[in-house]
């Protein structure tokens, strides 16, 4: 074991050293991300130190939401202008399937952990696609108005289906993913049977029937900022969104919102490098990725936003919020206190069934 990691480390450094020294790397790069607080955290943790080290000019593009479609269009036009793109894992899989993203070898192209653990082991199961370099673990989970739930704040995700105890509107994302899983879970399906059940037409009907019970009380959102706004306005009593959005509403804007971590849906966000870059740009992109996804950098990002670093070795390094000075660990979706009961999203299953289920979901919505 020891020997193996040592050789891996030696191999890594041997390969990295000449690459970092090579002069034929592009001195400008375009990095695509989500914008807002998330891009700011990346700028602080990755872009600024990388530019300071190398003198490379980094151009930010905030197009991650349409990254897949745009990359496909760029690829067809034969002019890919992006060097590194931040996407969610499901999109990374799709880009990989479409041949639009480059395959990455974690052992040679990613940095090993400080203790010598190889990148492949350090990221572990989170390397869900050959093209994907995980960066953070985030979750889609629920926030509720603390002043609108009385003395019994919700403790289970099934509170969203309980109109008697928690009357009022709820906001849910306008897509089947997560919602159908929560519906089945709250309809009594065991967690491990959820995807087997969803694979049958009856299972899909069962999930939609459960959602039907609250359909008239749901506000459907498409942008992550909507739920915090709806909660702040008192339009909804509870709603799902990304945990980082709720953190900033609670900790940075002091809204009367509580977190409901039960059955939070884990998801990954990370980098891909577009296929078909010129050698110089590819070398630059790989060099950036090697730097930006090492143990320390991933831990640094958590100072600015409450998303969990994707490396196991980064977790102990997570410190305090850069401005508020509060401990970040308890706000991470991966914190043991929060991760008691989580929902693990099945990428492969959704890649196969997304289109089919989406058609049914949209038809149900339009009814």
């Amino acid at each position, binding site marked *: 074991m020891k020997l193996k990691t040592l050789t891996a480390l030696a191999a890594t450094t041997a390969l990295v050293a000449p690459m970092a020294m090579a002069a034929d790397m592009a001195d400008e790069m375009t990095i695509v991300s989500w914008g807002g607080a998330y891009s700011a955290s990346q700028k602080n943790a990755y872009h600024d130190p990388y530019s300071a080290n190398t003198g490379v000019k980094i151009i930010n593009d905030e197009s991650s939401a349409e990254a897949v*479609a745009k990359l496909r269009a760029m690829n067809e036009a034969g002019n890919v202008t992006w060097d590194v793109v931040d996407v969610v894992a499901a999109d990374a899989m799709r880009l990989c399937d479409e041949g639009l993203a480059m395959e990455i070898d974690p052992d040679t192209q990613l940095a090993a952990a400080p203790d010598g653990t190889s990148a492949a082991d350090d990221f572990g199961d989170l390397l869900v696609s050959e093209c994907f370099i995980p960066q953070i673990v985030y979750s889609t989970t629920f926030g509720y108005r603390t002043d609108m739930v009385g003395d019994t704040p919700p403790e289970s995700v099934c509170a969203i289906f309980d109109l008697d105890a928690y009357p009022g509107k709820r906001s849910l994302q306008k897509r089947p993913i997560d919602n159908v899983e929560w519906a089945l879970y709250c309809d009594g399906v065991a967690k491990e049977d959820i995807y087997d059940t969803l694979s049958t037409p009856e299972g899909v009907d069962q999930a939609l029937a459960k959602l039907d019970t609250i359909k008239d009380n749901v506000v459907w959102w498409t942008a992550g900022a909507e739920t915090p706004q709806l909660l702040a306005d008192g339009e909804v009593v509870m709603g799902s969104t990304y945990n980082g959005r709720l953190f900033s509403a609670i900790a940075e804007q002091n809204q009367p919102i509580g977190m409901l971590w039960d059955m939070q849906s884990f998801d990954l966000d990370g980098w891909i490098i577009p296929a078909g870059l010129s050698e110089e740009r590819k070398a630059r992109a790989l060099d950036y990725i090697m730097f930006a996804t090492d143990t320390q950098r991933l831990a640094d990002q958590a100072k600015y936003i409450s998303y969990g670093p994707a490396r196991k070795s980064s977790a102990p390094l997570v410190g305090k919020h850069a401005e508020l000075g509060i401990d970040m660990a308890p706000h991470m979706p991966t914190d043991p206190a929060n991760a008691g009961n989580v929902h693990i999203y099945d990428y492969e299953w959704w890649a196969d069934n997304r289109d089919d289920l989406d058609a049914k979901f949209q038809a149900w*919505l339009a009814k």
Partner: protein
Amino acid sequence: MSDTTQTGPVLAADGTPLKRSLARALRMQKIRALMLIAPLLLFVLLTFILPIADMLFRSVENSIVPDNLPRTVVALQDWDANSGEIPDEAVFTALAADLKIAAEAKIHTRIGSRLNYEKPGISSLFRKAGRRVKKWDIEADGPFTEQFIKIGKGWGDPEVWRTIKTYSGTYTNGYFLNAADMQKGPDGAEWRPENEQIYFTLFKRTMFMSLVITVSCIVLAYPVAWILANLPARTANLLMILVLLPFWTSLLVRTSAWKVMLQQQGVINEVLVWLGLVADDSRLQLINNQTGTIIAMTHILLPFMILPMYSVMQTINPTYLRAAKSLGATNWTAFWWVYIPQSVPGIGAGSILVFILSIGYYITPELVGGTKGVFISNRIAFHISTSLNWGLAAALGTILLAVVLLLYWAYDKIVGIDNVKLG
């Protein structure tokens, strides 16, 4: 016609027949005019017509399957899709050979994605098979049937093979069928199951709501345009700014403002509750439904109705109304029989503008439409940017374009397109 003149054709000064000389002069003029607009024509052709044509062409294009699975497609020709059995070993060998090449070019997953639109599950069958097939020796490692089924049970499902066979042509009508809530079944086109039908509903809704928005724009814009046209120029110009100011404001800002106004804890509901007109626990649902879309879009599109109406009304001579009245018409008669007919070209132009703009509207319905107030364009956007099913998006877009052209033609027949004036 039967008049055969004694003299020959009329000659121009240089002796050529006048007719030919005139034609040449006209032709020169036409060419010169064409040269003048050539830059614009080329620009529109290159940046607008061609890309749209290319995009619409995707609605029938299916070459990815026959181009990358050539042997399989040929081998499948002899297989009877309705036999209920999987194809024989020859087909599996052909697939292995095709997939090996495709996997080396990393294109196998794209074929999988394409076929997955038609049958869920195929995507991962191709992804998994591609990984293995790369290591196979096609000559030596057969037979392949069992090996494929071991990789993914789906390869033993005749339905999967039927899908591949059905979508093996260079062109397909599958996207259009899908856009019309239909699918290719064993016996040709058939309706999709009821819980997947959505597009017909959306087309109907888009038409209906665009019509409602157009009508409410006419109702609101007509008096405004009338006042503007009949006030002294100074006051009219001042009021005109009030019409144009929202027109110059960002669309997103206006839509978000409507959110603040219309939501249940929003301005309108708060005022109604304060006045006691609405009980606190039964606030009006004004947003995230059709009402929200209609209110917000009527407001946003109103200037497109006011401006053409105003410019037409300005040209209506007020003496006509006075003449009608002096001949004994009441105010109403004069207005209805003299003023309205003259303002119809403005109504027509405004209606066409508003209707066609609203049919293709996307961002406002997305933000305030909830589930019942979204348009077909929202689905097109979804298929372009999220599901990546560009073929289906193109088919929906083609249908929308055809419907608009059809309506335009009908409008021309009923009202007459000559009867439209922008000023």
